[in-house]
């Protein structure tokens, strides 16, 4: 088998799941004949028709709400947000209606909301967002954010089969930049399980999505230059969080760096830190550090975007500080 990109892996998952289950359908803006703003759904309408690949009006609340209604009736809708930044207009629908449906009214709500997320692409403040932290706080949702092509495929397939609503964030910087051979067969990545992206002994980096790659780069650099052995944990699922994997890496290295692309205050790193101090405080030999974006809307000009987003050199600096602690 040949390698495919992260984007192609997402597309492959959609094709396979639509083929497998007639209840799966897609809806979103420009996903049909046009194949979506990033061409993720290219070819889908040609194969499955306008009824199962629906071009919607520009109305994210309606897309999400309608998906919920269809999901109650046994369908398995997959919503595309043209850019994940527009999920904000469906925030009420997701957090109040969808997330509570099963709990308050025994209404099953198996659906996926996916869309291109993240920065490093000069997209500016409204085409670069990472909304995971805004939803981490909502019991009833699940959140996944793959960093590799095989996880992109495996997590989307699992998300579509999950009996609850899964927010599936896909990083647009990774779309065409990474390639991988897909595992054979019906490849499913379990929701709720982190992945050790690199084994190490001295310091742990806990991260997800685009910064997994920056973490790996930094790990390699400090191994070469400082002889440090860095473990990189790719969370993959943010909600529910894989406490076992987090605790295990802390107990192994006793030094933790949390890295995410999103802004700092109120970001996911805070929650991870709280869990570590609760579950493994005595194993910590150093403060838990965070490398994140600065707390501003993401500006678009290259020097500004580069300054605001976390870079490999920042991670290197933090690793050295932790190792020296």
């Amino acid at each position, binding site marked *: 088998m040949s390698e495919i990109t992260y984007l192609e892996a997402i597309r492959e998952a959609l094709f396979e799941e639509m083929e497998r289950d007639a209840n799966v*359908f897609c809806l979103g803006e420009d996903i049909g004949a046009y194949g979506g703003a990033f061409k993720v759904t290219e070819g889908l309408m040609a194969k499955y028709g306008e009824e199962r690949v629906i071009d919607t*009006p520009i109305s994210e*609340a309606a897309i999400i*709400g309608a998906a919920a*209604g269809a999901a109650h009736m046994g369908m398995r809708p997959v919503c595309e947000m043209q850019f994940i930044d527009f999920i904000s207009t469906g925030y009420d629908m997701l957090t109040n209606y969808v997330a*509570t449906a099963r709990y308050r009214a025994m209404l099953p709500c198996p659906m996926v909301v996916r869309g291109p997320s993240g920065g490093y692409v000069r997209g500016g403040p409204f085409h670069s967002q990472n909304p995971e932290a805004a939803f981490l706080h909502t*019991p009833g949702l699940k959140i996944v954010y793959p960093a590799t092509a095989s996880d992109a495929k495996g997590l989307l397939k699992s998300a579509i089969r*999950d009996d609850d609503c899964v927010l599936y964030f896909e990083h647009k910087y990774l779309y065409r930049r990474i390639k991988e051979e897909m595992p054979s067969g019906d490849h499913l990545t379990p929701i709720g399980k982190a992945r050790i992206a690199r084994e190490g002994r001295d310091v742990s980096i806990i991260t997800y999505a685009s910064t997994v790659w920056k973490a790996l780069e930094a790990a390699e650099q400090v191994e070469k230059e400082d002889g440090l052995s860095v473990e990189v944990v790719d969370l993959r699922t943010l909600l529910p969080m894989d406490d076992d994997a987090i605790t295990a890496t802390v107990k192994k290295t006793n030094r933790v760096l949390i890295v995410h692309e999103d802004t700092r205050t109120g970001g996911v790193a805070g929650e991870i830190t709280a869990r570590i101090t609760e579950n493994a405080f005595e194993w910590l030999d150093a403060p838990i550090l965070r490398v994140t974006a600065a707390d501003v809307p993401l500006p678009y000009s290259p020097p500004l975007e580069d300054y605001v987003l976390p870079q490999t050199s920042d991670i290197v600096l933090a690793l050295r500080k932790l190792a020296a602690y």
Partner: protein
Amino acid sequence: MARSGAAASSPASVTGDGARSDATSLTREQKLELYYFMRLTRSLEERLVNLYRQTKVVGGLFRSLGQEADAVGSAYALDRSKGDMLSPLIRNLGSMLVQGAKPNEIIKQYMAKGDSPTRGRELNIHYGDLERGFIGQISHLGDMVPVMAGVTLSFKMRRQNRVGLVYVGDGATSTGAFHEGINFAAVQRCPLVVIVENNGYAYSTPLRKQTAAKQLVDKAIGYGIAGEQADGNDVIATYEVTKRAVDRARSGGGVTLIELITYRRKGHAEHDNQSYVPAGEIDRWAKENDPIDRYAARLNDEGVGAPELAAIDARVQSEIDEATDEAEASPMPDPTDALVGLYADPPAVAPLWFRQGIKSAVEVHERPASWGTHDV
């Protein structure tokens, strides 16, 4: 009568032939059933008022006094044997009863009982049952419109012969969710009926502060859908206008927006003293345009005698008594049930570390002073 004659104004954009209160194909039996449901709605709410005054209701109490025809007549136009579905709002107790909700469920909900349909999680009539064909609303107004667009989209995709009905208040028409949902359904030609219950107020806000439109049915043309307006206090007119829309939806004609003109005779909730209502307005509606009085008179004209209606009233009372007894005897929920059923998997959330092994958080439940002062 202040506004009940609106159906006659027949605006350019309204299709159909307006109120036809006299022409109906309903059988005598069905007509009596309509009466039963209206009476059941009113009497059940009156019982809830008693329970509320006895502080047995947890939270606010919401009335649909004067709107029973609107709720009952519209829901009655659905075909339960075909699996039609509806999404009720807070004034649609009557619609839910038509669709199969039981008085004891309603009372248990209001009393926050453990064997209530939501097991004490959600308040008042916020619950649903997919089997019987109604969907539990959330408080956020307008949100049920996209949801019902999706429910009816699934009917269409699966070539099912089913229809959906969603209610919104005059106030809820201002929400973005209403707009997005009805537009989505219109484009997809979903088999959906949208009923705007224009009862003159949204909480304290009169219609003219909610919209500058002359009438809410005028919104239909902007969505490219059929629009009709009817007298919501005439149960037969309400039934007929809804039935036409249901038939249209079932035969592939897409969405209809129906504006039902009615009036909210009670406050937004039981605590609201309606100080904002012009003097005499409520009385006028009560005297001149009570939907049950009007309907009883009509039935009388059609030869249904007072004893027959009284028998229905009595049956309603005994059903409510029975339901009250059952609800009062019901247990409150088990505290740790709060952790169950958020996700399909895992089936329950683990208790937090400080509650491991603890079965209830407090021994005695304080009754905060603000109970009953908040709305849905």
